[in-house]
């Protein structure tokens, strides 16, 4: 919401400086977004008369002017076609900065003729787009005066951000009221001229009392719709509103001045009376912005017998708008229901100054005065005779009374404000308190009669205030919210208690474990493209209004985002290694699941004087990351099984994203998948514009069993008394036998004595596979005898034999 300082002072009697006003606006909650002073940059320009204009001796399109800017004639070369002897314009002397051209003037020879300054166009002074010629000023403009003074440009424009609750501050007068309450001056009285109508009022009615509870109309006949007066044009221009014609400018002016939107119809273009009614589905209207809108049922429109002329409270129709030839008009002053306006505006995707005001709610008690004020302005500027006012329907005027205990200011707001001061603040904002209905009516004696809690009547222009907490806010924002003293929160005795949940501790621990393992934490978008999601089985959630196709589907896996990131990094740093991880959610149909993703791409190790060539990541690197992180998460890593990634495991991951022979899942029991790991399928890599090999891991954090808490004490330390015994076994095994199956079988062969079994050698030759296993036996009370060792050894060989393995000779 923009307004100028002089405009504000129409409503506010104040001696405050601009800075004081700006500070006060921000202090009461009207945040100042900017203050512009368009005249400040034009201080060097003056009103000047062109004394003579001669053809330039060297150029057809240039003239040599003699210009008087108050200090006698100076010679100026000018290219404007409208420059002529006798005219008045705007002159910049050497040294003046021309903002629209970004140059500082200096004395120069133009085609051999000296030029001592410049006559300026609108565009050069950033006053408009005009650049066909230089500015022409009226004949009575005083030569030599500062141009900004003459043009009234020394009126600072203040731009405030009005929060959606403040309907009243969508008009300059409302802002003045807040400032007056804040002690910056006095709100000037507002006198409305009620001009008695001479004819019968126009035919208006409302058939939609929900959407348009009140529709007031007044006709004015015999108007001349020329330009609006200079003072009005200047103010509208200053705040960025384009002056159009006197009638349109009057409605815009009243809207910005008083927050009261109006609409003016050309009666010559209407057939019969106007009615506020619900639109029929499919009905169309060409609005003032030139666009055609198809209306839906439930939208409120203003129509005559033939067609729709106005999207009620949002935008007028082009057809019945006023033009220079308009002589008879109908001025509409209506009350539209805020919710209806909001819904219609949202559905049509149409916003306007009127909508912004009706949506917040206009003052329902200001229909008569608003209409009378607008009519008086029309009569004054455009002439004509007014009819009587036709009033259809009734605006919602039930007074709202809030019971307010002033101690709430202290107990909710934390600021002590004496009750009399609170009463005065509320009164100055237009609230009434019992019998006191105005600031001037306040007296201590009368105040003493107000019952408790106070019956506070909310002004009609404050729809947002509907409870005692709102009144606390009103008091505190005027008194100064910054005065609220800091009060320490009560602190329970002792050291703060731990608050993190097991899930939070798990994430924190894994994040630092991953970083400690040399992985860089990324934060990627939660949404990916449809194709990227499809590579991982597709997403369960799609955004209806995505910002782009790339950010459309909620990720079903953390890998798409990490792969895209890896691809970007490898393009950026070819030959580098990328080790990224992320902890975040997968968005599945049933839940958002906490997940850790890892992508290992590029070089695992660079070429190196010790080891030779660069190496790439393989599936065992992925397995190592998975197990290391699971171990940090407290998962029983020794008991996990490696099983293939199924096409669709619980939760909907697609195994198809992975290399079918170089990927797996780590499971606790056959069903609980704690992690997937391995190499990605070449077609997955292609989808992300990557070339392999690329390893990845995904840990499903919510599947990891919670650590059992048994207090802090560890079990007693009891190392075995006797040394362990190591025995190596080399087996020839069927090619398809998994190493893990053999190791499990060996461990199971003598659970009492075998404490570990570990593959330490593997080779395959001529279709034969040899696996060598180191078995560690732990004696208990007594050392093993040769017979004991032979028995264990026999059991190991027998267990392996069941899997088709035989001792290598």
């Amino acid at each position, binding site marked *: 919401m923009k307004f100028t300082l002089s405009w504000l002072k129409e409503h506010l009697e104040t001696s405050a400086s601009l800075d004081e006003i700006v500070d006060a606006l921000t202090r009461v909650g009207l945040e100042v977004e900017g203050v512009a002073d368009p005249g400040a940059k034009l201080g060097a320009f003056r009103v000047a008369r062109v004394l003579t204009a001669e053809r330039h001796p060297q150029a057809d399109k240039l003239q040599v002017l003699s210009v008087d800017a108050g200090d006698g004639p100076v010679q100026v070369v000018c290219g404007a076609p409208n420059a002529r002897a006798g005219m008045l314009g705007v002159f910049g002397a050497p040294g003046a900065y021309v903002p629209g051209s970004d140059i500082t003037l200096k004395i120069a020879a133009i085609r051999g003729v000296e030029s001592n300054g410049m006559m300026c166009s609108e565009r050069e002074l950033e006053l408009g787009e005009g650049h066909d010629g230089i500015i022409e000023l009226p004949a009575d403009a005083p030569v030599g005066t500062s141009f900004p003074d003459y043009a009234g440009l020394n009126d600072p424009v203040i731009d405030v951000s009005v929060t959606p609750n403040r309907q009243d501050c969508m008009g300059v007068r409302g802002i003045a009221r807040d400032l007056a309450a804040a002690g910056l001056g006095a709100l000037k009285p507002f006198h409305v001229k009620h001009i008695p109508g001479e004819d019968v009022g126009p035919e208006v009615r409302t058939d939609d009392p929900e959407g348009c509870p009140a529709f007031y109309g007044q006709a004015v006949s015999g108007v001349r719709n020329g330009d609006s007066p200079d003072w009005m044009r200047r103010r509208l221009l200053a705040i960025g509103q384009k002056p159009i014609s006197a009638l349109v400018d009057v409605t815009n002016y009243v809207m910005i001045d008083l927050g009261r939107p109006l609409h003016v119809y050309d009666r010559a273009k209407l057939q019969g009376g106007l009615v506020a009614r619900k639109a029929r589905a499919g009905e169309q209207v060409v609005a003032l912005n030139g666009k055609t809108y198809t209306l839906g049922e439930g939208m409120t429109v203003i129509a005559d017998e033939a067609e729709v002329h106005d999207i009620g409270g949002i935008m007028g129709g082009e057809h019945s708008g006023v033009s220079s030839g308009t002589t008879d008009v109908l001025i509409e002053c209506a009350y539209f229901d805020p*919710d209806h306006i909001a*819904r219609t505006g949202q559905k049509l995707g149409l916003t306007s100054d009127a909508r912004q005001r009706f949506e917040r709610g206009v003052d329902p008690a200001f229909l008569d005065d608003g209409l009378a004020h607008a009519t008086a302005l029309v009569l004054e500027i455009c002439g004509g005779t007014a009819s009587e006012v036709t009033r259809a329907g009734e605006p919602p005027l039930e007074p709202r009374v809030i019971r307010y205990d002033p101690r709430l200011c202290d107990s909710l707001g934390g600021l002590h404000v004496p009750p009399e001061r609170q009463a005065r603040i509320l009164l100055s904002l237009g609230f009434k308190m019992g019998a006191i209905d105005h600031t001037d009516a306040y007296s201590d004696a009368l105040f003493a009669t107000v019952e408790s809690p106070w019956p506070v009547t909310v002004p009609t222009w404050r729809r947002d205030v509907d409870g005692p907490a709102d009144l606390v806010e009103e008091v*505190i924002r005027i008194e100064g919210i910054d005065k609220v003293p800091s009060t320490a*929160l009560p602190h329970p005795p002792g050291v703060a208690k731990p*608050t993190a949940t097991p899930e*939070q501790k798990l994430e924190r621990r894994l994040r630092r474990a991953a970083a*400690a393992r040399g992985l860089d*934490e990324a934060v990627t978008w939660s949404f990916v493209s449809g194709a990227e999601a499809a590579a991982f089985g597709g997403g369960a959630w799609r955004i209806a209004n995505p910002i782009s196709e790339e950010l459309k589907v909620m990720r079903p896996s953390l890998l798409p985002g990490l792969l895209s990131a890896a691809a970007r990094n490898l393009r950026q740093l070819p030959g580098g290694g*990328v080790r990224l991880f992320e902890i975040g959610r997968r968005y599945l149909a049933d839940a958002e699941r906490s997940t850790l993703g890892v992508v290992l791409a590029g070089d695992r190790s660079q070429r190196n004087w010790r080891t030779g060539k660069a190496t790439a990541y393989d599936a065992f690197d992925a397995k190592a990351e998975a197990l290391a992180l699971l171990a940090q998460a407290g998962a029983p890593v020794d008991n996990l099984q490696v099983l293939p990634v199924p096409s669709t495991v619980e939760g909907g991951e697609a195994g198809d994203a992975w290399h079918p022979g170089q990927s797996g899942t780590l499971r606790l029991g056959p069903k609980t998948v704690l992690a997937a790991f391995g190499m990605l399928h070449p077609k997955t890599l292609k989808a992300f514009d990557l070339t392999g090999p690329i390893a990845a891991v995904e840990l499903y954090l919510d599947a990891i069993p919670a650590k059992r808490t048994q207090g802090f004490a560890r079990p007693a330390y009891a190392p075995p008394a006797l040394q362990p015994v190591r025995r190596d076994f080399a087996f020839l095994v069927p090619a398809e036998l998994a190493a893990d199956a053999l190791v499990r079988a060996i461990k199971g062969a003598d659970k009492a004595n075998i404490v570990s079994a570990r593959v330490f050698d593997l080779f395959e030759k001529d279709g034969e596979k040899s696996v060598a296993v180191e078995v560690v036996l732990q004696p208990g009370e007594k050392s093993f005898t040769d017979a004991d060792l032979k028995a264990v050894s026999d059991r190991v060989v027998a267990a392996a034999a069941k899997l088709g393995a035989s001792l290598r000779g």
Partner: protein
Amino acid sequence: MTDIETLHDRLLADTADADTLDKLEAVRVGALGKQGSITALLKTLGGMTPEQRQSEGPRIHGLREAITAAITGRKARLEQDALDARLASEKLDLTLPVDLPAPGTVHPVSQVMDELAEIFADLGFAVATGPEIEDDWHNFSALNIPDTHPARAMQDTFYLAGEHEPPMVLRTHTSPVQIRTMLAQKPPIRVIAPGRVYRSDWDATHTPMFHQVEGLVIDKGITLGHLKWTLETFLRAFFERDDIVLRLRPSYFPFTEPSAEVDVGYTMRNGRRVLGGSEGWMELLGSGMVHPRVIEACGLDPNEWQGFAFGVGVDRLAMLKYGMDDLRPFFESDVRWLKHYGFSALDVPTLSGGVGA
């Protein structure tokens, strides 16, 4: 010169001349072995008279001890020389480079969230979470934002496709966690809720996804003064500066009443804004007293329970503290940026060590 003296001198000379361990061993065997010259002399002692033995014994034994000592000394010398020679031959060029394990990093957003959790835990706040795909009721209605409210136009909401009743949105703020917390637990409540939030906005200073932290206190007798103290205390701890000054401005959020925008004071240092002091003010966060209707929507009596809430951008806090001047690279995962602004795994924020790293 006697034979013994001659032998003594010869053996000493041989010992000194032995320049390998093998040669020295030959000298030893020649003198002290079974057939050795000294061994032979020792054997003569048995055939001597007591008087001869009295005079020759000490000489012969003296010879044996002297030669044994000489050989032992010479052996040690030769072994030392051999070791020195071997070690000299093993010299490496230790200026050659070694591969260090790549240092990993923690993202600044995660680091700051850990810092927040640490500080607020000391003030008695737990960390709460909620879904990011949120229903319309938790994200808007329960927060006193009806569907026609102009406030909905303040936030550019992402809606989820498909028929959902109620409609589903990507949460536009962490405030729905307030609702979920109040519904799930009885007051008194002190929580913070950090997490991802989404708005359909993408320019130099906005990204469609970013991070917020919500704070909520519900108790008896909580006022705006407690809010101010909490924010001051938190920011002073977070920035580890005692001169952090806050300025409250009245504002509007549908879910708080009264509402306040909080500015933090800054000082210019070498052309950069440094938090602390009050040369200028920058907007930092939104806050207020929880609206009675929000408390009511959660099944609590607003006459009994009241409290405050605030919401602040985590990414913004990170930028202000650690000096990033652009939000967008936070989510681009450029390894160079991550390594530059990221944190070591061991930079665990603690109160005793200071939460900053």
